[in-house]
């Protein structure tokens, strides 16, 4: 195992692509700069990590002496605990900072908090922030400490997308040519955006489905006009005028779900109804709830996933959520494994396994 200092790994300039470069990746800000090969290697590594999780003593010394700080400035249970557990199983020292009780509460700026953590020689900051782009802001300002995006505003949630990819690959095999439906509040969903990039890189196509009031306007326009930003894009990155790669929009869930290999139901924040974005939750469930009848339209053996936390009986019927097609608990397990793989890869600079 190599133990190069983080500063030697810093290969990006302030304007360069954040993760990539001549050397190993230092940051994970989104999946838009991941190749199929890099994703595949991470998923392979995560499979090995699942073996570690299955051991009676769930700990290996791989990241001994490494310091990982989770800086969660928005409420979270599963993602924060998942990162913490991933770090601890690899013997990293994991320090958790939240909004309450931290200097952020005293008005310290995010920049100064991050510079302070860097000055303490933290190897990695895992950040969850209510505002889109906060991890990019940190990456721009930090010279030696790496940054992992654990969810930023409406923008991205790359580790959630990786665990979704892992879950799909475990059950479907290759994702090449797979058809994945993402249903719900796409507009506000960082999960949908990162999933779209990860799925495009893996060769899958994505159908976005949900209320028109919860769909990015540029995607609706592309659908309506078939204009320059319309239609699926062959590449894994969107061109100018395209916000997401290889996606189509289908408002009707029955149509969208027909022949799907996997369905990802997004969390609906019920406050959106009071904000005038939905007529009623009743109408939402009638039109966009994933039901047994709708899943029957998908391919046999199609997967049902949800990033959590779920409003049971709203996005998905209760029976389905606890039925055999649902992968919701496996997603959580895979989440720990993929975060172990990611921390390992970032903090050792190799794809070598423990």
């Amino acid at each position, binding site marked *: 195992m190599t133990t190069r200092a983080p500063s030697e790994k810093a290969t*990006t300039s*302030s*304007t*360069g*692509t*954040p993760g*990539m470069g001549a050397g190993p990746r230092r*940051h994970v*800000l*989104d999946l*838009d*700069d991941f190749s199929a090969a890099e994703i595949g290697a991470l998923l392979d590594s995560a499979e090995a990590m699942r073996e570690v999780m299955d051991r009676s003593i769930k700990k290996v010394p791989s990241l001994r002496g490494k310091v990982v700080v989770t800086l969660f400035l928005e409420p979270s249970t599963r993602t924060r605990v998942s990162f913490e557990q991933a770090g601890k199983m690899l013997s990293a020292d994991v320090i958790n900072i939240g909004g309450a009780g931290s200097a952020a509460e005293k008005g310290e*700026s*995010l*920049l100064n908090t991050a510079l302070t953590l860097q000055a303490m020689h933290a190897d990695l900051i895992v950040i969850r*922030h209510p*505002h*889109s*782009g*906060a991890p*990019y*802001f940190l*990456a*721009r*300002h930090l010279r030696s400490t790496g940054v992992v995006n654990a969810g*930023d*505003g*409406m*923008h*991205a949630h790359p580790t959630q997308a990786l665990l979704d990819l892992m879950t799909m690959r475990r059950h479907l095999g290759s994702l090449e040519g797979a058809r994945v439906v993402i249903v719900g509040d796409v507009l506000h969903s*960082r999960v949908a*955006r990162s999933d779209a990039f990860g799925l495009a890189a893996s060769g899958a196509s994505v159908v976005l489905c949900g209320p028109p009031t919860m769909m*990015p*306007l*540029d*995607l609706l326009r592309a659908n309506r006009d078939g204009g320059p*930003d319309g239609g699926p894009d062959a*590449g894994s*990155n*969107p*061109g*100018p*005028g*395209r*916000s*997401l790669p290889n996606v189509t929009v289908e408002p009707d869930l029955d149509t969208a779900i027909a022949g799907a290999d996997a369905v990802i139901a997004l969390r609906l924040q019920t406050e959106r109804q009071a904000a005038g974005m939905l007529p009623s939750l009743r109408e939402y469930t009638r039109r966009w709830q994933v039901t047994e009848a709708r899943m029957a339209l998908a391919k046999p053996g199609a997967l049902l996933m949800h990033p959590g936390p779920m409003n049971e009986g709203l996005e998905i019927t209760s029976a389905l959520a606890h039925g055999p097609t649902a992968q919701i608990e496996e997603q959580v397990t895979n989440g720990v494994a993929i975060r172990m793989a990611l921390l390992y890869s970032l903090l050792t600079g190799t794809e070598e396994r423990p």
Partner: protein
Amino acid sequence: MSVPLLIKNARLIDPSDGSDAAGDLLIVDGVIARRGSTNGSVPDGTRVVDGTGMVAAPGFIDLHAHLREPGGEDKETIATGTAAGARGGFTTLCCMPNTNPAIDSAAVVELIVRRAAEAGPIRVLPFGAVSRGRSGVELTDMEELARAGAVGFTDDGSPVATGHLMQMALLYAGQLGPSTGSGRRLPVMDHCEDHSITKGLGVNEGWVASRLGLAGYPSAAEESIVARDIALLDLVGGALHIAHLSTAGAIDQVRRAKERGLLVTAEATPHHLTMTEEWVLGEHGRGQAGAALSAAAYETRAKVSPPLRAEADRLALVAGLADGTVDAVATDHAPHTFGDKEVPFEEAAVGLSVLETAFGSLMGLVHAGALDLPTLIHRLTVGPAGVLGERYAPLATLREGTPADVVLFDPGESWTVDAASFASKGKNTPLDGETLTGRVKLTVAGGEIAFDGLGA
């Protein structure tokens, strides 16, 4: 008394009479003593400047600058803001009333006028607030404000809050009393934005906003208020001025209103004329097509309200500037501190520090062939003076006997923007490090040298 100044052999462009010829310009006792002729005597002690290869024009007039004083002195003061203006070739700055306290009383107008006089020769003309405290409810004492020196009214930073208030403001400011000039009509400037449509600030609604997971600011949020204001102008008269026009649809509306003979004027900023929404992706608006986001994305220095728009909007804006639909270039100079901008995008303050880059970036349009130089100068001088009214016309001419507000610039000199060296306290420009062609060399206001860059 200022030293007499002779600018020799410059290209003299005077948009007030359409003249454009090589010649000399003699400034004595604060006025233009002689224009054109290369003959004749000059007073003893006259400073002679060789203007070969350079252009002399009336000093620029900025209808829209945030000088922050009083209340925001950490961002800018009248002294630093006028110094920045002078370096940008501006001899007149209209300052916005979103100060603390707002410019809603004669006392604040008088404070600004006094501070400006102490700061130097650059003229500072305050806009008063439309509503007391800029709170969108009660009209300010507009007549008293005008008497103290306010040249127009706006709640800029915010729109005029309601259609009712706009109607009252157009009526009242349209007929101010004899003490401010008989029946004088002062413009009401509006920052057109329907807050209920705007979900987020600083990025256009479109693929960039969607890509970044940011709530966008659609063109419709601007155009719906432009439509409201034009309808009210048609109803009650007065003089309406649309601030920082940014969308193709809004330009169409202004063009059609002007064709109908309505007294509407409009301004556009250098950044909306030269940059697009892609600048929010960082890297100076380049190299992002089809690429992963870089750490330079979420460029808070390109966060501005209204946001940088799509290329089609920018092109419509340039066409509107060329055909006169857009009367004036105005900077919307909005200086901020480091801490105001070095935060996640959604928390960052809106606005750019513009005064020192405005002319250089606008010259890019001239060098690209999108606009001719006399038209650009017109929109920086005669255009804005016309918005302010007839009595400001002498500030926008090189005619003999008028106040010597003059700029001398080298249209072909390339220079690199270094925000750290700005006179403005606001270093917040995405143009930092960019090379611009066209540089102000000398700024004279009322015959006084306000900026001398000839040695540089």
